[in-house]
């Protein structure tokens, strides 16, 4: 590592790598409660990295985004998910369509692709956290992979939310966050989305007696 990189940038890079690491951990996690906890941890890390960017750049609206992230992604959403899991009495095990080592290998390939795609853009970026754009895209793709490979409804939703985390990291790393009104709108959408999904889980379970979405393969173009 070059000693010329300022301390704050190193911190941001550190947090970004922790987020990537957590994305891999989620990909490997077999238990649904632990998965939600990992998601909460990712939200917390995201909040810290936003806070560091806010302190170093003095952008006041980033403090608000950091607070919003903490509230929504580290506390509220995990809490809702925990309650849902308990109320629905979901079984502990998370099943995966592809076995986990193979998923990890695919994940590594995705990270390499993400870094290649964002390479030319990172060079243009003048923000202090420019190195994290590749990591952000990589976490989005890993979350996407998780949604594809998991067969249960709740891990799919956690994947969906983790994808949103990656996007948020992209917003703070490439730029200093989106305009406040947009961020508020996105947060509102995510919150409503989770509430609707909560309603939806109960409907699915009532119909199928399980949250296994492999039951839901009737609609096909035969």
């Amino acid at each position, binding site marked *: 590592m070059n000693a010329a990189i300022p301390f704050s940038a190193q911190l941001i890079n550190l947090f970004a790598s922790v987020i990537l690491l957590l994305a891999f951990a989620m990909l490997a996690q077999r238990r649904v409660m632990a998965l939600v906890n990992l998601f909460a941890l990712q939200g917390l890390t995201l909040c810290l990295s936003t806070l560091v960017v806010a302190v170093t750049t003095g*952008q006041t609206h980033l403090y608000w985004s950091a607070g919003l992230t903490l509230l929504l992604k580290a506390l509220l959403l995990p809490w809702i998910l925990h309650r849902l899991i308990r109320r629905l009495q979901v079984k502990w095990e998370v099943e995966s369509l592809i076995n986990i080592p193979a998923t990890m290998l695919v994940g590594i390939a995705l990270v390499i692709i993400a870094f290649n795609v964002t390479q030319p853009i990172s060079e*243009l970026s003048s923000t202090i956290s420019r190195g994290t754009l590749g990591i952000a895209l990589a976490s989005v793709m890993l979350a996407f992979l998780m949604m594809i490979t998991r067969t249960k409804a709740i891990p799919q939703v956690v994947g*969906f939310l983790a994808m949103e985390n990656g996007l948020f990291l992209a917003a703070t790393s*490439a730029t200093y966050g989106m305009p406040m009104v947009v961020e508020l709108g996105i947060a*509102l959408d995510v919150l409503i989305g989770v509430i609707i999904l909560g309603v*939806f889980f109960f409907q699915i379970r009532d119909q199928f007696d399980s949250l296994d979405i492999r039951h839901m393969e009737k609609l096909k173009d035969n």
Partner: protein
Amino acid sequence: MDFFVLMLAIPLVSGALLTVFGERAWAPNLNIIASLGTFLAAVGLTVEVVANGPRFAFGEQFFIDSLNVFFVALTAFVGLTTSIFSGPYMANEAAHGRLTKPRLRLYKSMYQLFMFTMLMALTTNNLGILWVAMEAATLTTVLLVSLYRTPASLEAAWKYFILCGVGIAQALFGTILLYFAAERVLGETGNALLWTHLVEVKGQLEPTVMALSFIFLLVGYGTKVGLAPLHNWLPDAHAEGPTPVSAVLSGLLLNVALYAILRCKVLADGAIHSDYAGNLMMGFGLFTLLLAAFFLSRQKDVKRMFAYSSIEHMGLITFAFGMGGAVANFAGLLHMTMHSLTKSAIFFAVGHATQKTGTQMMADIRGLIRINPLIGWGLMLGTLAILGMPPFGVFASEFMILTHAMKHFPWATPILLLALGVAFASIFGKVQPMVFGETEAKRLPHAPAITPVFLHLGIVLMLGLYIPPYLTRWFHEAARMLG
């Protein structure tokens, strides 16, 4: 009061009212009155914009020009006719015991909120808010798709939510990249996502970033348009949801998503200085068109079949806009109008037909012309219109797209003709026995609303024979803006 404020306030307020009072006997009427109010406000706004030119609202947060006011008018109109259609349709569903009162309330309040989110997406000047409104439009319709709570409808709604969620996340990444490119030119003000500011500096936006951004935006919003290969949610959501929802999804939501792509294309074109964005759209459009045409022949469910027909037409429209230029853009806009009107009319007719016969399987629907001549003829004429038979308006727009393709992109012509031919054979072959043929079907407790069907088809027919000059001017203006 300002027409624009009224247009957004009416669906929002009535949506809230219907959430509370949706079970009252007058609720269906409120739904129609609110849609009528929205439509009148939209007409007022249109007249104003056509007379005085583009305008802002709420500072610079909303922007209405001849391009989006055209979509606004169309959305409000189809919203009105669909609410008229859904009155007797939903009453019949309730009488058949398929829907309870709380679900009817959910339907009405979500319908109004859906109209609100679409009008918001169309009029906002902020590309970030555009994203937020598009996502909100998905959220309001998810619970409508699963309204019947059958296993199939739940599956459809789940697929709709997840696939569109993934798609829309790609669009958000594209928006972030766009903001990144804009920020370097416009600085860190709240204006860097405002379309009117972006379009002024589009030549200075970084081409590499814009190229990447446009891919994400196209794939993301393209998922909602129904572009292959991310179109899978569309037939399920259309087939399993209540028919009025299919009509607005097909007739309006797909248009709004395509509108989002068009706005972004203008910026990408300005930044990249090549046909990059257009070529991408042409590729996606042709692929979608071809795929949908061949899937059409395999359908057994009538709503599913017309959903695939929507995918096919969206592919054709995307291709038209991809070709670019005044003529192709004009044809694309015209085709969007024709498709919205015709497809929603077809869904109205299909909705009543499936209620009469109690099934969506085409093999079991026979002899509509004997059960109810108006529904039968409505479906037949609608089908002929959507298949591009003259003198209906779809013929005019398809003909323009085809001739323009022949002139500038001759290699695409055989693909277009093949897809349109296959689609014609599949749809006509299936609808013909549904309309003519022997039957035994029952009477419905509530008389169906036939007016919207023939109103739409009448307009499509009129536009096929004669497009009023002010409409032509308006289309030309909008087409010119798209470059």
